[in-house]
């Protein structure tokens, strides 16, 4: 056999399927230069050493697992920087659960099981919101669970989005075009109003919104907190419902959360080893879908909003390559003065910033962004990500809007 034939022949015959993208690393260190954590934590060796370099050591023995891996926020800026397509962030996340101490941790369970926590607060949301806002409770959560007491908790909504949807379900069915909405945990339990905004905007474009028969957390917080098996189970359930929705005549699946969308569309195959190829092309982050519709001429009627906003690009939207779509959309809103903030991680990184040991890091990472926001004279900050919103609202004096909310405000 010729050398070329050998190199081609056995490509896919390997008996095992773990991610070997670390083999492609050229040690160029581009990732380390872009890591927000390494910039503020001298004791964090950075994505190159924790990811591809560390993986070679961990293959030798799990004893080489570096404690510092827990400081990775999974922002994926390293993967964006990497010219060799190394899945650095995935390597780190997998290493933590594969080689690490996998004993059950109540805090990680609580923070990551966002849908379960949402369900538990059903009917008691106002009480829970009051509780999590008072100092003694926060102190207890800080001491007993390691959830930082300085962190503001997202408020739970009185009525879930799914329930609110029932009021509009009938009129949605009347539209000729139908699209399925993966609302995610945040919209369902914390911010149903954002979901309603999405319905209003799409309705104004003559598109009806359906819900999936059933959906579960996309898996982002589960992977980050060491529950990959639960994430895989959720992924299977979600994909089965996506396929069902497509079969039932839905045009596609949209998500209003940039992190959920990244996970559903781009990360299921390699982060969880779950094939989403049947529905992948139908999954879209909302701004991409809307920008394409606008470009095709399906634009709702809008009036000038006469606002000045500062746009913050979330890390996971950067990773998905979706920032341009959001910008394209914002540029279409009449009377909007748009300032693009520097591309800086806000530091919260989903559940990361809630943990006591990460609080300082989280705020240090975000500080250049907070400073720029305070220095701007914008009326609002706009961003696509719910946890970026929590972080910016907690750390600055400005209110944060989702692009969809801004669009809804512009509707006639």
């Amino acid at each position, binding site marked *: *056999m*010729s*050398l070329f034939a*050998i*190199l*081609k*022949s*056995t*490509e896919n*015959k*390997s*008996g*095992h399927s773990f991610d*070997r993208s*670390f*083999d*492609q*690393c*050229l*040690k*160029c*260190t581009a990732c380390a230069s872009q890591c927000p954590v390494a910039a503020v934590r001298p004791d964090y*060796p950075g994505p*190159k*050493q924790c990811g591809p*370099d*560390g*993986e*070679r*050591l961990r*293959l*030798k*023995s799990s*004893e*080489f*697992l*570096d*404690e*510092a891996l827990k400081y990775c926020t999974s922002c994926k800026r390293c993967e964006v920087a990497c010219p*060799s397509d190394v899945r650095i962030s995935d390597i780190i996340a997998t290493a933590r659960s594969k080689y690490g101490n996998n004993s059950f941790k109540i805090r990680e369970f609580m923070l990551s099981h966002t849908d379960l926590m949402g369900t538990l607060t059903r009917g008691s949301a106002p009480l829970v919101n009051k509780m999590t806002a008072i100092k003694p409770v926060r102190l207890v959560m800080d001491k007993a669970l390691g959830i930082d007491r300085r962190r503001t908790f997202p408020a739970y909504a009185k009525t879930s989005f799914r329930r609110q949807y029932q009021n509009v379900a009938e009129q949605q069915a009347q539209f000729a075009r139908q699209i399925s909405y993966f609302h995610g945990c945040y919209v369902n339990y914390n911010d149903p109003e954002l979901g309603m905004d999405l319905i209003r905007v799409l309705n104004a474009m003559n598109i009806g919104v359906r819900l999936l028969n059933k959906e579960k957390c996309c898996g982002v917080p589960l992977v980050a907190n060491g529950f990959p098996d639960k994430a895989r189970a959720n992924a299977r359930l979600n994909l089965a419902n996506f396929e069902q929705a497509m079969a039932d005549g839905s045009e596609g699946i949209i998500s209003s959360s940039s992190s959920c969308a990244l996970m559903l569309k781009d990360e299921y195959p390699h982060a969880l080893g779950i094939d989403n190829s049947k529905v992948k092309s139908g999954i879209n982050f909302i701004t991409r879908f809307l920008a394409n519709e606008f470009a095709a001429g399906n634009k709702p009627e809008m009036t000038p909003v006469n606002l000045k906003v500062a746009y913050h690009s979330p890390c996971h939207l950067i990773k998905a390559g979706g920032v341009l779509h959001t910008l394209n959309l914002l540029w279409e809103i009449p009377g909007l003065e748009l300032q693009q903030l520097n591309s800086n991680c806000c530091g919260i990184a989903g559940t990361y910033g809630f943990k006591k040991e990460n609080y300082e890091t989280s705020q240090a990472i975000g500080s250049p962004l907070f400073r720029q926001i305070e220095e701007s004279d914008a009326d609002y900050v706009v961003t696509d990500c719910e946890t970026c919103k929590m972080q910016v609202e907690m750390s600055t004096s400005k209110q944060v809007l989702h692009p969809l909310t801004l669009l809804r405000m512009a509707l006639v």
Partner: protein
Amino acid sequence: MKRLETDVVIIGGGATGAGVFRDCCLRGMRTILVERNDIATGTTGRNHGLLHSGARYAVTDGHSATECIRENRTLKHIASHCIENTDGLFISLPEDGLEYQAKFINGCARAGIPTEILTPEQALRLEPVVNPSLIGAVRIPDGTIDPFRITSSNILDGREHGGTLLTDTRAVGLIIQQGQVAGIHCLDVRTGERYEIRAAQVINATGAWCHEIMEYADLSVDMYHSRGALLIMGHRMNGMVINRCRKPGDSDILVPGDTVSVIGTTSTHVGRNELENMEVTDEEVRVLLEEGCKLAPSMASTRILRAYCGVRPLVSTSSNGSDRTISRGLVAIDHADSDNLPGLITITGGKLMTYRLMAEVATDMAAKHLGISKACTTASVPLPGAQGDDRANSQSWSLPNTVSGSAVYRHGDRARNFIKEEDKNKQTDLDKQESSPRWRNAVVCECEVVTRGEILYAVDKLNARSLSDLRRRTRIGMGPCQGEMCACRTASLLAATRSDVVSPLKALHEFVDERWKGVRPVLWGDGLREAEFSYWVQEGLLGLGSLKSDQQNDQQNDQQNDSEALIANAVDACAADETLSGQQAEQRAEQGEVV
């Protein structure tokens, strides 16, 4: 002319020479070891790093098999920091059938090698990388051994027991007086200085090159030089050693070694004049990969770091043996008995696995002549580094596991000599001489996690004199980037702190060239991208090519260019007339006279 006097002089700094060095020193002999390059640069540094269980020879060479399993157990005890107990699999593929497996298990039983028969499913669970089409597997106690580390540890122990190591020193002739070998003529390859070492016993431990030393005394040996090529994979593909359960053939062992895996070997007969030609051919690479993929199919899509080859020092006993049939048994010749030439002992043949046994046999011969009755203790006294378990201790260093783990993995209990501990009360030698000891744990080579402290320790205590020497002692530049980043960092560290013993720029040039040599035969895919990037960084960004050499550069460069001629002259001069005094020989050499 300078003259050194000693009891024993050993020629050759491979594993065997180092083992003899340690054994002699432990038995109280005054000992000098001369090595023309650096330790472990010959066959020792150019093999699989397989800690044989002996199973490979169980069917074909029962004697070697028995030797191997005995030494296997000994080495696990005395050199725990150089060894990993990975165990190994002998897999049978459909084309091999299971017939050989039965013979194999019988052979192992005869040699005392424990075996465990596994089903294909069990084997795949233990070692997921293995070819899934296997039809059977046997588990045996193979392991891995780091040849550089074991050599270095033997040297270190010898030096700590009073021995002297002279690297870059070439034996250019034997001093023969009144029918007796009385020492050697040496050439310091770095300075060009020639001198003699007077010794009661000369031990020729030059392995594949032993005929060259024997020729100085007009002796001959029927060496069968067998060249074997190997490939280093980019990461550790397998946890266990994987062998083919069939008659030993080409490319049928995949050994996990430290952070990489090594596939090999081929076997080609080479002539005496080809021993220095170490280029791996395209055909060798092709064979290694084609056969290697049968052990582990994912090899085809795995990055290959480099290719290298070594020469087995086999001694023919029959005229028509191919190398696979020649015994791997050791050959020890006391020339007092066999050639009526007292004072010279040759130890060759054998293998890395049996280096200690070879050393014991040779040292016994020397001890007999010297009237030393102290028994050999190398099988029971652990080597430096294996004298205590520092793994638990390292937890208290409050360092990342990658840093402390790698240091202990490579240096065992000696790691504490260069790791900077948080504890202010503990001060090591290095702490005292350094202005900023806290920088000692800074990582210089990121692929293999080599710290500043480890590099300085290797220079100060392990006789490293160049970047390549450092590589053998610490693994700098052995990772995927092949020194792209750490070569310059290390050179600058040495320039700043140890320029009195190392010429940083010369060492840097040599190192980069040497790395390139191994990369060239496997230049495709990610390896090619890496090489391009290295060139871009080192040449395009740092202008390595325009940095000619160190301060006393011209002088040294001239010496470098002349050294080949110098050696040739010196050897000729010594060989021409043993009765000539050293001075006369020197004069003749200086006049460039060729006899």
